[in-house]
C-alpha cells in the first residue's frame, strides 16, 4: 500500500487523536508495524488495518464511519496535491469515470508495484451503479471519496444503497429528489 495513504491517514487522525495518545498507540504495536512512513514508500496493508483498528478502539468510533470520513478528507487532499487531475472535469460522475480509466492507470505506470482498486460506473436507467473492486476491504473509504466527490462538484446525485458482494461492493447513485 502506498506510503502516501499512511502519511495522509496520520494527518487525518491528528484531528481526533492527540499526539501522545497516537505515540502511545504506536508504541503498543512496536515490532508489529514499521511505525515511521514516507509517502514515496510502499507498506503492507496489514499495518494500515492494525493502525486503523487501534485508532477506532482508542476513539471508540465505528471503523467504517471513520474510514468513510477519511474518504472525504482524502478528496480534499487530492485536490490540493494533484489539482491537474481536476482540471476540465465538469461533474463528479465524470471524475469517478476518470479515476479508474485514467488516474489509476497513471499510478500503475509510475509505481509498478502499486495495485489500485477498480472503479466502474454503470448507467442503469436514471441511476448509476458504482462498482468498487479491490483486494483491500476499504469500501468505506471509497464511499467517503465518492460522496465527497459528488458534493464537491455539486452533482445532483447521492448514494442510496451499498451492497457487499464477495468480490466487489456496489453503490447505487440516485438523483436527489
Amino acid at each position: 500500500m502506498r506510503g502516501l495513504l499512511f502519511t495522509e491517514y496520520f494527518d487525518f487522525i491528528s484531528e481526533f487523536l492527540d499526539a501522545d495518545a497516537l505515540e502511545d498507540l504506536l508504541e503498543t504495536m512496536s515490532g508489529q508495524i514499521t511505525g515511521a512512513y514516507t509517502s514515496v514508500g510502499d507498506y503492507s496493508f496489514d499495518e494500515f488495518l492494525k493502525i486503523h483498528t487501534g485508532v477506532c478502539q482508542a476513539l471508540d468510533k465505528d471503523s467504517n464511519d471513520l474510514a468513510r470520513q477519511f474518504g472525504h478528507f482524502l478528496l480534499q487532499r487530492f485536490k490540493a496535491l494533484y489539482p491537474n487531475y481536476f482540471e476540465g472535469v465538469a461533474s463528479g460522475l465524470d471524475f469517478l469515470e476518470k479515476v479508474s480509466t485514467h488516474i489509476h492507470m497513471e499510478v500503475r505506470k509510475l509505481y509498478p508495484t502499486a495495485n489500485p482498486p477498480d472503479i466502474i460506473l454503470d448507467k442503469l436507467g436514471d441511476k448509476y451503479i458504482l462498482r468498487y473492486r479491490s483486494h483491500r476491504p476499504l469500501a468505506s473509504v471509497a464511499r467517503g471519496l465518492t460522496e465527497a466527490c459528488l458534493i464537491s462538484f455539486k452533482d445532483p446525485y447521492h448514494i442510496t444503497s451499498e451492497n457487499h458482494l464477495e468480490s466487489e461492493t456496489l453503490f447505487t447513485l440516485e438523483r436527489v429528489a
Partner: protein
Amino acid sequence: MKQQPTIKTLTRQLERERTARKEAEHLLEEKSIALFASNSNLQQLNANKEASLHVLGSFAIAITTMVDEIDVVWYLAKEVVAKLGFIDCVVYMHDADSGAIVQTAAIAEKNPNGRQIVNPLRIPLGEGITGTVALTMETELIHDVTDDPRYISDVMEGGSEVCVPLAHAGQLIGVLDCEHPEKNHFTDADLYILKTVASYASAKIAERRAHSDALSKAQALEGRVHQLTQLKNELEIAKEKSEETSALKSKFVATISHEIRTPLTGILGSLDLLLDENLTSHAKTLVSMARSSGQMLQTLLNDVIDFARTEAGHLQLEPTIFNVRDLLASIQTFWHPHIDAHDLELNINLDFSIAAQYWGDVGRLRQIINNYVSNALKYAKSSKIVISIKHIASDDTNHLHRLKFSVRDFGPGISPVEQEKLFKVFSRLSSSRHDQGDGAGLGLAICSQLAQAMDGEVGVTSTFGEGAEFWFESNFKMVENLEGINRPVLETQNLLALPEVLGRTPRVLVAEDVQTNQTLIRLTLEKFGCNVTIVNNGIEAVESASKHAYDVIFMDIAMPVMDGITATKRIIKLVGHAAASPIFALTAHGMDEDHSEITQAGMLGIVTKPFKPKDLYNVVQQCCKNADLSKLAEPPKQETVSNNTLVNNATKSFDEDQISALLNELDHASKDMLITQTIQDLRAAHGTLKNGLEHSDIDVIGAEAHKLQSLCGTFGLLHLQKLAEQTNTVWKRHHIKDCQKYGVLLEGSLGSGIQALATYQQSLNQIEGKESNDVYPCP
C-alpha cells in the same frame, strides 16, 4: 481542547520522522542508481544500433557495384558479419550438382589470410545443423550445441550457434553460420540482424544469377537468329532457283505446245476445207474422225498452254464490258450440237436482277463455264444440264454485284473425298466418272487459277448419286448501259459476205511464212469476199504496205528475214501513224507478255492462232467500217492547212454536243465567260508554241501540247486534242523532227479551233439575244 504534546511524545515523533526521511533517502538513492544503469544501457543500445545501421548501410551501397557473387559472400563475412560484432562466421554456398553446401567464405580461425579457407568442409544437405538449415531453409538458434546431436565441431568446441539460410524466391543459395564459445550467447536480435544481411546478400546473388542467365539466353537467341537468317538466305536462293526452273519449264512447255499447235492448226484448217469438197461418205466419215481427234488434241494443248501460262504467273486479265445474256446465248449456241448429239437438254436460269452489262474478262469467264459444261457433258446421263447465274450479293457504293455461275449435271455425282481433289492439278476422277473421262485433268485446275486471278472462288457441290454442281463466283462491276462503247461484236448468225455488208470489197494483206497457214487464211478470207494479198515475211509486208492501201494487215509475229514487230514499226515510220493501215498481230504465242510488245509496236490487236474464221471476219468488218465512218466524218479541207498526211483525218474537228453537255448546267454569263477564257488560253498557247518553234525548243512545244491536250479535250476540240496528243507522244519519245512537224501542225490548226469556239459563242449569244462584241483574230 487539545493538550500540548509532551517532550517524550515530541521525541518519539521526531524519531519517527527521521526514520521516515532516511527511508525516503534510501529509496531515492536506489531509484537513482537504477535510473543511471538503465540510462547507460540505453546509450549502449543506441550506439550498437548506430554501428549496425552503418554496417548495413555500407553493405547496401557496396553490393550495388559488385558483379561477382564470390565478392558478395566474402564481403558478407568480413565486412558485414565481422563488423556487426560476431567473432566467428562461415558462409556456405549451395552446390546443386552434388546436393551439398560448401564453405566458401569465413572469418577468424577458418580464414588465416586473404580469401583462404582452412579445410573447407562440404556438408550434404540435411546433415548437421548447417545442412538442416540448408534443407529446410529455416533459421536455427541453438543456445547450447552440446545438447544438439546434429552439431558438427569444426574449429570451435561447445558454446552456442546461430544459422540462417541464404535463399531467394524459394531457391537455396547457401547458409550463413555463426558460433560463439559461450552458451546462451546469441539473442533474437542477433538472429534478426543475420537474417537481414542474409536477405541482402541473397537478393544480390539472385540478381547476378538472373542477369547472367538472361545474358546467356540472349546470346543463345542471337546465335539462333543468326542461324535462322542464314537458313532463310539459303532458302531464298533455293526458292529463286526453283522459281527460275519453274519459269523455264513453263516457257518450255508453252513453246513446245505452240510448236505442236501451229502444224495442228494447219491440219485442222485443211480438214475443214476438205469437208467442203465433194467427198464420198466414207471419206467424209474419216475426215470427220480426223477432225474431231485433232480438235481434242487442240483442246488438250490449249489446256497445257493455259496452265503453263498461269503457272508462270503470266496470266493477265483483259476486262471489257460484257453482256451476261449475250455470253449465255453464245455459250448455248456453241454447245448446241454437242447437247443434241448426247440427247440432252441445256437449260439456263438467269436471275432477274442481273444487270445488262458488267466489266470483266469475258473470255476467261467463258473459259470457266465452257470447262464446266464440257465436264458436265462427259458425266451427265441422258437428262439435262442447267447453267444458272445468280446474283448473290450487292455492294451498292461500288456498284458491284457478286455473281455465281454454276453448271449442274444429273450424273453419278462425286464423293466427298474426290470433291476435295477435284480442283488440283492432274486430278481426274476414278471409279464411274473415270470410265468416260478424257483430257489431261488440267481443266478444273485452270478454272481455279482463273478464278483466283479474278478474285473469285470455284467449288463443287454434289451428293453422290445425284449429280454435281460446279460453280464460280466473283464480284463484277456494273456498267451503265451505254450502247456501242467497247461492246464486242457478237454475231453468231451465219456470216454474210463482207462486200454485201460493207458495199465494197475489203483489201487485206497477210504476212505469214507457213504455207499451210497462208492457204488457210487466204481461203477463209476469200470465202468472206475479201481481196487477199499474201507475203512471206516482214520485208515483203513493208514493201506492199508502202505501195498500196489496205483495209487491214494481218501480221505474223515470228517470221524469217524480218519479224512482224519490226515490220510494223517500219510501216508506221514510213507511212505515218495516221495513214498506216490497221495492223493486227497473227500469233500463236499464248504468253501474255507478248502483248505489250505488240501494242507498243503500233498494232491494234491480236488474232490468236488457231484463229476462228469469225475472228478474222470481225476484224476485217470492223476496220472497214471504221475507215468508212472516218471518211464520212472527215472535216472540210480548209480546216487544215497542211498537206502532211500525219494528221488523222478520221477525227471530227469540233464536237458541239460535247461542249453543250459540258456547259449545259451553267447560266449564260458563266458559259460566255468560260468560253472567253478558253479562247484566251488558246491564243496564249499559240504564242508559246510559235515561240518554241522559232527557237526549235521541243520541250516548250511538248509541254504546251500536253496542256492543250486536256484543254481541247474538255471543250470538244477533238481534232486539236488529237494533234496535241500526237505532238506530246513524239516529244516524250524524243523524236525531235516529228515533234517539230506536229508542232507546226498544231500551231497552224489552233486558229480554226479558236474560230470554232468563237462561232459557237456567237450562236449562244444569238440565242440569248445578245451580240458579242469581242473579235478574235485568227493567229
